[in-house]
Structures are given as C-alpha cells and as structure tokens.
C-alpha cells in the first residue's frame, strides 16, 4: 500500500499482513512525532506516522505502557505518560525554556556530561519551536524583557544567582492543534491504533528492513520505508529497541550496551515543603507563576512568563553542582488583626457605612501599627503588598548514570505479548548533594543581601533528601546522543550509530538534561531532525539504507 489519503486511517481496518509503504515512517504521535510530520508536510516524499492510540484516551491501549518500578518510588508508569494521538502533550503543564549553554558543555565535575554540539547550533531550532508551542518571542533572560513592564527581580548577588524566565505554553495539545494540518497534508498519512512490535533488520543488524505491527486484537501488518524514526517517548523508544532482539541478542543498535541506560528525571521539591522563606517584604511579583507580558519587539505575541532563580555557570562550576531552578511561591498569610481592621475601614470609606465594632478595629490598627504602615502605598497603587512568607520550590538536573535504567521484564508481558518494562530509576550521591545544596545556597544568598531568612526541612539536610522529592515525569536519556558509538546510541543527527536508516526523536536522546522542562528541546530537536531527513532523502537510496 502506498500513496496518501487526506484523513487519518484506522489500522484496525488493514488486511492481515498488509504492508504500508512510505519514504519516512515515524513511530509515535507525540510532541516529537507530530512536529516531525508537520515539518515534512508538502515535501516530495511520503510520510507514514504510526500511533499506538486513537484520538482519545483508551484504557486497554494506555495499559500497554505499564511496567514494574524497582528504583526510586514512582507513580505507576501508565499514569506518567499518555498513549494516544498527541502523546504526553495531552497532559503537560506548558512550562518552556531552552537548556542553558552550560548544559551542552562537557563539565569536568559532571561525569559523562556534554552534547556533541553547543547550544548555538540548536538555537535556530529553538526559535522555530516557539510558535509551535504557542509561546512569545525567544526571550528567556530578564535582560531580554527590558521595556516590557515586568516587576523588578530581587536584588540577589548576580555572581551567584540570576533571575531568569520560563514561558508558559497554553499548553499546546499537539494532537488537537496540529490534527487538521496533518489531515490536509497530501503526503502525510497517520495510522491510529497501530502498535509497532518489532524493528526487523537486515541479517547484519545494520539497517531496518521493515516494522512489524498490529492492533490490539487485530491482525499483524508491516510498514516499510527508506527511513524510520522512533518517537515513542523516553521509555518506549528504548523498550522497542530492546524488544527487537531477534538478530542481535541485546536488541537493535545496542552494541554499546547503552540502550535503556542513563535514565534521567528532574527531581522536584515543592509540595513536601522543602524550605520556607520569610521576609519583611520580598519583591515577589517577578516570580509569580503566571504574568502576562508583551515584549516590545513582538507586540502581537503576548507571552505568559514566570520568573525563577537559576545559578550562574560560575556557581555550578565552583561548587561542583548539577543545574537547578528555584521558584518562590507566595504562601497564604496569617491574618493580622490590624490589617483586617484597616481593610474594614477602607471598605467603610468606600461604602460610607462605618463598621459596628468601630473601637475594636481602632484598637487593632493601633496595636499592629508597624504592619499597617506598610499597606497604604500598595492600596493606593493597586499593587499587592510584598510577600512575607514564600514557599521555596526547586528542581534539579540529574547526573548521567548508566545504572539508572529501563530494561525488559523476563516474566511480565502486555496484552500484545510484549515484554513489559522494568523501571529502575536511581540517584547518585552527586544528585543528593545538589538537592541538599540548593536550599542551603538560597538561605545564604537571602541572608547575604538582607532579604530575609530561610528554614530548611530537616530531611533536606539528611542522607536521603530524595524522601521529599516528587518526580516531574520527564523521561530522558535512554538512547543517549554521543559522537562516540561506544559511548552513545545515536549520533549528533539523532541517527542510530549502528543502524543506517533508523533515527530516534525525543528526550531519550538527551545526554545531559539541565534543569529546564524538556518539551521545547524535544520540539527543537525534531525540527532539526526534519531538516536533516530532507537532506538525506535527496541522496540515492543505496547510500541510505544499506542491505535490505
């Protein structure tokens, strides 16, 4: 079967053993897969996208990604990602920020860190990713937003901490936002309910011959293409490679033994109350989670920004830390009688009706005069009063660690007869050191500039600060990128080192993960990969696919 129809197809309607044909076959319809397909719209070649789920959540399909968790406590895996068109963008929060330049560097205090290229090479693709994620202009540093009317950040020592910005995507649900474009595309065909079970390779394992697939309860079918891209997410990319072990015992492209290893997350500390900041008046407005802002250079593209604290590169280098971010969330104030009474007077002045217990209110105001004195300015200007108590939330990078991994279960199988995943997320002592260091560093910096004091939960200083973490459900690193085939799974173009026509898209290729949410980097890499595939497909077929 070749050629295109301009609607999504249901793989359950395919005949037994039928073979789909295309120039590019993308496996997985999440942020990476949809971005890739979208970038290939209108190109002179056919694209086939195979999505395991349908257009809505379907429990039997969702349960295909169940697995056993044997490492750091985690939610059930099937609750941490979504297996239908749009993938995990169907429940992501929208926080977006590119990785920092230092995240791409080889850092001598972070073993196995470093990307094969620097941030400058990815920056044009980050810029192209911005509108796809419905974000404002590519501007993430405080200095980039001068003239936009943002509140000033706190006056921390800029040699240690800098105030930076995230942008909030609406959040873009890729399956809904880009469905029409893909349906209308003459060269794209999307198959729903299509589960790829195996990557069939040539006898030498050096090229993909075709993909073996089936629907839940339906007949098998195949997909054959010149190029294949796995875009299944940070766990399932590795799982499919490991499952495809008919030719090579360790799975496809796993001569290095690194497929499934180096799993990384972003440990996050917030609801467990890791630390609290008290202050006579912290200038928290810059750090509010949702601030509407209009960049002077892009008045037609308003953005929603969120200020946070990030370490300088010098801080990370001098202290040997992994990257991190700190958010300051205003906590509910304890009611102060004098303030409440002053508010009663303000209401009375507006309505002309004096409160019945007038003298009690007068007494309260006099007793709390120091507190009340701070408020008239804020009432007059319409601004919120400064914060007195803020909850400290922070998240950290993880060190690349080969022992943190996913692998195949020997006894558990899913409804398609496929071996389930065993999820063994682990931390290193360096991860723990960074977890302990972040609130301590904040406490010192806050004290140093006289902004207040910080209380740190005792667990954060103990041997197991991870007892307070919550995962971010960012799954990264299991098919890591490295220029050296012995040390990575894919090369700088996201192509498998050992398989000439097989590529991997998504956060599984991240060799180091920084502190930023991964989605915008996933999308930027997918755009970059699409550009690369366009070039590759101009070459003669025999230079691409090897033996078939």
């Amino acid at each position, binding site marked *: 079967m070749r050629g295109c129809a301009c609607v999504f197809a249901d793989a359950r309607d395919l005949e037994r053993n039928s073979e789909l044909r295309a120039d590019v076959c993308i496996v997985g319809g999440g942020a990476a897969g949809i971005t890739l397909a979208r970038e290939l719209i209108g190109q002179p070649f056919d694209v086939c996208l195979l999505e395991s789920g349908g257009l809505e959540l379907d429990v039997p399909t969702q349960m295909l990604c169940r697995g056993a968790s044997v490492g750091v406590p985690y939610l059930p895996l099937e609750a941490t990602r979504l297996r239908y068109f749009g993938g995990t963008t169907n429940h992501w929060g929208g926080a977006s920020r590119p990785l920092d330049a230092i995240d791409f560097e080889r850092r001598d205090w972070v073993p196995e860190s470093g990307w094969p290229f620097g941030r400058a090479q990815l920056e044009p693709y980050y810029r192209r990713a911005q509108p796809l994620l419905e974000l404002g202009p590519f501007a993430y540093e405080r200095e980039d937003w001068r003239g936009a009317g943002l509140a000033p950040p706190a006056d921390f020592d800029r040699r240690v901490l800098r105030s930076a910005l995230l942008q909030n995507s609406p959040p873009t649900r890729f399956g809904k936002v880009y469905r029409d474009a893909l349906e209308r595309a003459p060269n794209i065909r999307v198959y729903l309910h299509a589960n790829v079970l195996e990557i069939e390779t040539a006898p030498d394992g050096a090229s993909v011959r075709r993909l073996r697939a089936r629907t839940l309860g339906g007949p098998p079918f195949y997909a054959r293409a010149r190029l294949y891209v796995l875009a299944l997410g940070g766990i399932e990319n590795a799982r499919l490679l490991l499952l495809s072990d008919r030719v090579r015992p360790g799975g496809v492209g796993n001569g290095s033994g690194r497929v499934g290893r180096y799993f990384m997350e972003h440990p996050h500390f917030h609801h467990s109350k890791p630390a*609290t900041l*008290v*202050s*006579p*008046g912290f200038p928290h407005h810059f750090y509010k989670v949702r601030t509407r802002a209009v960049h002077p250079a892009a008045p037609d593209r308003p953005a929603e920004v969120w200020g946070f604290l990030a370490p300088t590169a010098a801080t990370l280098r001098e202290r040997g830390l992994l990257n991190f971010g700190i958010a300051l969330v205003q906590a509910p104030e*304890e009611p102060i009688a004098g303030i409440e009474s002053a508010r009663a007077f303000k209401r009375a002045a507006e309505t002309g009706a004096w409160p019945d217990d007038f003298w009690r209110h007068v007494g309260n105001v006099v007793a709390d005069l*120091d507190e009340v*004195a701070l408020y008239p300015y804020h009432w007059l200007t319409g601004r919120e009063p400064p914060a*007195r*108590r803020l909850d400290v939330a922070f998240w950290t990078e993880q060190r690349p660690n080969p022992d943190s991994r996913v692998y195949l279960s020997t006894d558990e199988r899913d409804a398609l007869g496929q071996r389930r995943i065993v999820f063994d997320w682990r931390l290193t002592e360096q991860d723990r050191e960074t977890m302990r260091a972040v609130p*301590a560093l904040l*406490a*010192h*910096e806050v*004290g*140093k*500039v*006289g902004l*207040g*004091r*910080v*209380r*740190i*939960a*005792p667990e954060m*200083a103990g041997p197991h600060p991870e007892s307070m973490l919550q995962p971010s459900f960012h799954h990264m690193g299991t098919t890591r990128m490295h220029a050296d085939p012995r040390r990575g799974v894919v090369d700088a173009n996201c192509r498998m080192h050992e398989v000439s026509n097989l590529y991997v898209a998504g956060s599984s290729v991240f060799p180091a993960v920084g502190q930023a949410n991964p989605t915008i980097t996933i999308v930027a890499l997918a755009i970059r990969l699409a550009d690369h595939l366009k070039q590759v497909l101009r070459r003669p077929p025999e230079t691409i696919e090897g033996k078939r």
Partner: protein
Amino acid sequence: MTLARRTLLKRLAGAALLCHVPGLAARAESVTAAPLPERLVRLFAHRESAVVVGRRYLALAHEPADAAALAARVAGNPRGYARLCAADAVALRALVARQERRDFAAGRTVTVDGWVLSLTEARLCAIAALARG
C-alpha cells in the same frame, strides 16, 4: 523542643522588619548608657522568639552561657566592642545588620531547627535567652 513554626515565622518576620524600617525601630531604644548585652537584646522586635531561638542555640552550640562573653564574641575584638558600645540605637542596628550579612557571605551560619541564621544573630538570641534566665 521544636519551635512552633508558625510563631517563629511571624516573629522572625517581625525581627527582620525592625531591621529594615529604622524610623519605626528607633523608638525601641534611646538609652546608650546601658550595658552592651542589654542594648543588643533591645534590637529584637519580638524578644520572646529570640529567647526561644537562643535557648535552642545554647543547647546545640559550644558557647559560653555568659551574656557579656557572648557580646564580646559578637563584637569580635576590643575595637569592635568599643565601636558597638559607642553606637547609638540606629547605628547599632545598622552595624549588627551589616555583620549579619557578612556572616552569610562568609559562611558563618548556624542552623537552629532548620532556620539558617547568621552566627551573630544566633549569639544575639543566646544573649536574649541568658538575659531572661
């Protein structure tokens, strides 16, 4: 003994407030002739919370249970002691606040029930606790 978190939050906020609004704070002290430990204790807007922190600190730290000796440690050396003694209330508050910031910058901090405090303010709290007896 664990400090009541809510109370301490409020009281520490109050103490910090005093440091930042000299006009409001100045009324708290006008006598410079009193002994230095007593004048240092007057810096606290909420002495009760300072007493609680100070007791806790004295139980944890190797410090003399002697207010004069602690005041000398706060001053650092005889010259510093003389400077603190000569300062009026506003200047004393400014000197102490600056020393606290320097403590943080130099890593001279102590942790009392999770609160990261400058060594100077922990000692001031201890003086407050000793003054209470």
